[in-house]
């Protein structure tokens, strides 16, 4: 039995230690907001926060999470940066198919927590790991800037 804290709630899960957090969230706990995109940390769709840091959950074994708190898209709205990013994403109508946007929002929220007023170069560095196949990048960039401006 492994204990993990997700969005402030402790869950007991019965899986192998090497099971990636992604599949624990999606297939064991039924928290499907975090998405599977590539399985090899190339696309960012599975991004969650572990102890405040954006992490590709397809690459993090659940046994390595320990007592570090996990925040997912289902819980990010409770953080100041997450709420601002979600609002900016709505205001600018960022999402198209929306499948990558959980990961985009998690990456953007982490960026704004670390760097409240990011430059374009900061945005490129923080967001280049998140692929959007619909090509919403123009609005993602604007969304990060808009969220940053809502101090």
């Amino acid at each position, binding site marked *: 039995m492994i204990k993990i804290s997700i969005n402030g709630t402790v869950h007991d899960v019965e899986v192998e230690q090497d099971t990636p957090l992604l599949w624990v969230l999606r297939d064991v706990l039924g928290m499907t907001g975090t998405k599977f995109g590539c399985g090899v940390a190339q696309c960012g769709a599975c991004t969650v926060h572990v102890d405040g840091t954006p992490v590709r959950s397809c690459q993090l074994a659940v046994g390595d999470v320990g007592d570090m708190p996990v925040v997912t898209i289902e819980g990010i709205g409770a953080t100041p940066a997450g709420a601002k990013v979600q609002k900016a994403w709505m205001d600018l109508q960022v999402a*198209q198919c929306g499948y990558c946007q959980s990961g985009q929002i998690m990456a953007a929220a982490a960026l704004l927590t670390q760097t409240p007023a990011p430059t374009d170069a900061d945005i490129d560095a923080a967001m280049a790991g998140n692929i959007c196949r619909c090509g919403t990048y123009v609005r993602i960039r604007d969304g990060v800037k808009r969220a940053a401006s809502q101090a």
Partner: protein
Amino acid sequence: MDMQPSPSPSGASRRDLLRGLAYGGLLLAVGLPLGRLAVAREDAPTVFAPDAFIRIASDGAATLIMPQVEMGQGIYTAMTMLIAEELDLPLAAVRLEAAPPSDALYGNPIFKVQATGGSTSVRAYWTPMRKAGAAARAMLVQAAAKRWQVDPAACETQDGIVRHAASGRSLPYGELAAAASHMTPPSDPPLKDPKTFRLLGKTQTRLDIEAKGNGTAKYGIDALPPGVKVATLSSCPVPGGKIRRVDDTQARAVAGVRQVVVLEDLVAVVGDHMWAAKKGLDKLVIEWDEGPNATLSTESLRAAMHEAAKRPGVPVKSEGADVRPGDAGVISASYELPFLAHAPMEPMNCTVHLRPGACEIWIGTQVMTMVQAKAAQAAGLKPDQITIHNHLLGGGFGRRLEVDMVDKAVRIAAHVDGPVKVVWTREEDIQKAMYRSTYGSWLSARLENGKPVAWRHTVVGPSVIARWLPPAFSGGVDIDAIDGAADQPYAVGGFHVDYVRHEPQGVPTCFWRGVGPNNNIFSVESFIDRLAREAKNDPLDFRRALLTANPRALQVLNTAAAHAGWGTPLAAKAGERVGRGICLQTVFGSFLSTIAEVAVGDDGTVRVRRLVTAVDCGMVVNPDGVISQIQGGLVFGLSAALHGRITFEKGRVQQSNFHDYRVVRIDEMPAVEVHLVPSTEAPGGIGEPGTTTVQPAVANAIYAATGVQLTRMPIDQTLLAKGGRT
């Protein structure tokens, strides 16, 4: 009882809609009653169902039975706007329900099958949806007028209420719904004058936007029927190959693995969750019978296409003076596109629960009835024994116009007790997929006095249409493959277009965002630039002179040129060469011009700095939705231009995931500008034209920067190093 209620767009109905979307939009009514029958709802009963699309309950709740699927293009919002406009309902008061499979009721009016694709939805439903709304509104008005004993023409509607101004009476639709169901539907209800539109042409918030920002939006891959197991699979890496032998000893020993299913052409591992299934899959020892395609290579496939190009084609257009390659004074060139994967962010998946005499499916698909037919075939059942829960699509791009993932999942499920979710790894998604084919174009023209006087275009490529929509394949011509070639916008004198159908050996091909025009716009616009050079003319001026009879095309060209600053100097850093290039296209019923601005490094690296697109897509439903689709379509085309390439060696696809099947990321993004040209013409399609416009604009810009004309995609940077090939 007459009353004056407040309008119905309450927060509650809005929440209900989003709640519906959160579970896939899909309060799927199995065996939805047809015609004018009432249907039981979870809340108030539907009492008014004038056609296949509209349901109004006794409490006034309105439901749109949505024939089109949402894959990011914003069609849930656009379709709802069309019906809400004529029905005089607030947008937020309309709930959505995914249409069940039925070509008869929900067939796309353009394809005649229930499909979402080809940038057709608004073009197909602009009139039918509005007429459906107008007819329902007329029947509600008739019901009110009858109750009040007044002239229907003296009644008006607003926000879900019928009013009779002269007597000050009003009734909400819900109270009229039962009576309206007894009124005669008008055969040809009048539609609103566009000048009076309250919703259409005005930007509306996407109905799916909130659910797509908080993790509650449900895609096919999110289906979790009780007791579901997860499977992942490996099909033969060589298309058409079979399983010879599988050793699953180690796979079965993996914790959480429940079962290994070996079929003729694939093996699947079923587990408690995806990780168990994936670990199990990696432990399989599979011996393949690779079959007849084991020696395929990119080179052999390309050589076969070039050989096919020598065959006489089927004439598509043949008017006036002809021109043949090799004749004196004739300018000729050929252009080619590579194989491509779709790689939507949601990998292929399909969840199936197969029981005796029944099959339940959870999926996100562009083709409901094709899923139904394929599942019935694979399960040995009748179509009406198949229930489909359609979901939001995590990208379609044409890949979800196919049902190979359904066929495989149902065949696997036949060996599994209980529901099983079959999820493809990204590697499976890229390597064992269906592909955008290679296409080629062979063009020739003759110039006199700096203008073309004869033009010949031979299009070489497979016919996806012949398999996917057989009635549309007639006389040996694929109407998609020649789209953009047979109807190019320029006055070129004698005009001859041929089609040579060439199916690449072994490779399953399918539609890909931009479809046939990807090939034809790339080749025509590249060749137009070539002719402009031969005529010693500016690419913009050369085009303008050939567009005097095509004012809409000329207008978008001029609009893009003005915004892009055509002809003004471009700044260049040391070690860079810079240039601009044009694309003009008139496909999907829309007129677009894109001007690309590139910087090419001395080492050949290409940076696209800016894309400026002008669009005339006729009357617009949701303006911000159009801009969004063009922005995204440009990025899709840019990925193809910069990186897109599936190659084969020994029958196998050589790319496997996003590290070697690259797509554009945010740090490669150019500045993007989209300019809408106002229009009162019929609506055009907008999902795909942004994509097809990029490759030629970028290639022409690269020529302007370097003097090198690229005739194949993706861009080969080794051709662009300063001073020649590196």
